[in-house]
């Protein structure tokens, strides 16, 4: 049985740009799918198709068991959409905004008012309920926008980059609200550029780039695909980089990556803390002075880079406009959770990974040029 959100072969082109290039999705009821990708990847376009805002050129989709193309109006009764830009009327008060949305969901005036009061209470906006939204802080507007999407308690929710541009405290608050919502059984599709956000909120993650889903799985499965843990060393002097690389070649399981600016050398390893001690001894014996050394589990940042060949944040001219400088901070700490599960997942995914990486890399180079001038999605997602 297809899930609460289901899509098959979605294609949407804007001029020369294939914003969606054959996207399949299947989100089981009551779960959260995190759709991860950079600006212009096609995330917003996918949400727009699923929420009936645009029609795909090809493919089919169902939301809450209803065909999106055949019965858009029935779909609209079952969904809530919270956009990247807080789509509330800034000259109306919080209460007026929510009451209006309730009325437009065809509630009676009295029901709409009652529901608005409930939501204002729940989203900690009761004190500001009768002030115009113009006076709200960024975080309050997002909460109001989210509340507007929840007026009818829809079974399926779409959130398009709900925390883009929010400060950490407000982001945390919004995450709490979303988690509460999901605990109540709502099916959620969430797009984000923040790897940490997908990690934190989503059961499943699909990585989107250039209109395609290039990987999917749980956060741990995806992390496992990048080859497990790695050692990261920062040497004190630049002239020690070469010798460090040589040493690491003996310990590592793959190519090391060097960042000459920060004098950081990273290499995938297997062997954990014991290996770390050996590496330190060996480097010490060769007289290499180490500023910092650590063992870290891959973050979704690493997953993204290994899959797409570029980092998740704005990487080039056209995208910089949209990036707000917080692109891919990720969780540098590295998480210990799920290490056991990931080993098994790695085995399963192992064969696929190399092929996937190759395809992704090829696609990246080919499609880059087209996407750099990306009008439709990048433009849309880039506007502040």
């Amino acid at each position, binding site marked *: 049985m297809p899930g609460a959100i289901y899509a098959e072969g979605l294609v949407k082109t804007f001029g020369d740009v294939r914003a969606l290039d054959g996207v399949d999705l299947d989100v089981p009821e009551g779960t959260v799918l995190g759709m991860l990708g950079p600006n212009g990847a096609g995330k917003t376009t996918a949400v*727009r198709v699923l*929420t*009936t*805002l*645009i*029609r795909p050129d090809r493919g089919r989709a169902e939301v809450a068991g209803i065909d999106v193309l055949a019965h858009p*109006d*029935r779909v*609209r*009764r079952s*969904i809530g*959409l919270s*956009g*990247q*830009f*807080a*789509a*509330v*009327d*800034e*000259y*109306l008060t919080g209460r*007026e905004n929510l009451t*209006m*949305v309730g*009325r*437009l*969901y*065809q509630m009676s005036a009295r029901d709409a008012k009652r529901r608005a009061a409930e939501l204002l209470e729940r989203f900690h906006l009761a004190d500001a309920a009768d002030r*115009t939204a113009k006076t709200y802080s960024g975080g309050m507007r997002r909460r109001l926008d989210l509340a*507007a999407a929840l007026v009818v308690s829809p079974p399926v929710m779409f959130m398009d980059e709900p925390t883009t541009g929010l400060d950490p405290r407000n982001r945390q608050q919004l995450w709490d609200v979303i988690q509460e919502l999901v605990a109540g059984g709502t099916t959620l599709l969430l797009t984000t550029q923040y790897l940490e956000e997908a990690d934190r909120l989503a059961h499943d993650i699909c990585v989107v780039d250039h209109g395609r889903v290039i990987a999917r799985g749980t956060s741990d499965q995806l992390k496992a695909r990048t080859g497990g843990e790695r050692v990261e060393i920062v040497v004190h002097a630049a002239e020690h980089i070469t010798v460090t690389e040589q040493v690491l070649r003996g310990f590592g399981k793959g190519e090391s990556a060097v960042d000459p600016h920060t004098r950081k050398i990273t290499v995938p390893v297997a062997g954990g803390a014991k290996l770390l001690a050996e590496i330190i001894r060996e480097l010490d014996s060769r007289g290499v002075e180490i500023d910092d050394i650590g063992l870290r589990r891959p973050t979704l940042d690493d997953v993204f880079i290994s899959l797409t060949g570029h980092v998740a944040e704005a990487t080039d001219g056209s995208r910089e406009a949209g990036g707000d400088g917080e692109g891919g901070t990720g969780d540098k700490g590295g998480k210990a959770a799920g290490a056991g599960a990931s080993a098994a997942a790695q085995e399963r995914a192992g064969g696929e990974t190399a092929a996937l990486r190759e395809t992704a890399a090829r696609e990246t180079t080919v499609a880059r040029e087209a996407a750099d001038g990306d009008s439709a999605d990048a433009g*849309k997602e880039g506007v502040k």
Partner: protein
Amino acid sequence: MSGMSDSLVIARRNVTRMVRIPEVLVFGLIQPIMFVVLFSYVFGGSINIPGGGHGPSGYREFLMAGIFAQTVTFATAGAGAGIADDMHKGLIDRFRSLPMSRGAVLTGRTLADLVQTALTLVVLAVVAVLVGWRTHENVASVLAGFALLLLLGYAFSWIGALIGLTVRTPEAATSGGLIWLFPLTFISNAFVAVKGMPTFLQHIAEWNPFSATVAASRELFGNTNGQAVKSVTGAWPMEHPVIASILWSVLIIVVFHTLAVRKYRSATA
């Protein structure tokens, strides 16, 4: 029918906005008031209207229907800017994701503009009376004249709605809603007698939908100096201005309502 109640919900929203951003209404009033004063006192002494408008006071009577009509057509810019702003802010996306009537966002907008146009006309009429404008027909006839003006304004706000959905930014919608209004309102019978124009302009002016409403309300206000409205070129709308005015406005509403709602269905910010 949910269409009407949705439209009223949106209209109420837009009227609320209007009250909270009174600058828009105020600035919208300054321009026509300026026109009333400037045309009356600057041109009033020099322009002689054939058929007997004697001097400044005669021109003032002739002029007001034209200024009123021009003012109501400026609703185009308001509607366009409002819709474009909603697109830009993502509100149209929200509305389009709701199970509401497809035309309601636009109807709600145009209805709110109608309220604004009516308020503007009231203020303008007071100013007109202050500078010496008088009507010479009964109250019902005068009100009918204003009703035709409102209908024209409503029709033009549908043109604005289409412009707003097409251009996507409020700034472009404002200028896109205004520039063509100047030739449209000046190549007409609004400010001068058509008789003085070159022949080809006379034809354009007399078939101009705008001229029909000007002629009709001028007649209903009794501002024709006691003479029947006459066409220079024999154009039908000038011989039957009231009917022509209604027909033109209804035609504009039907055409632009259809186009705008179709555009709205596929509108993406």
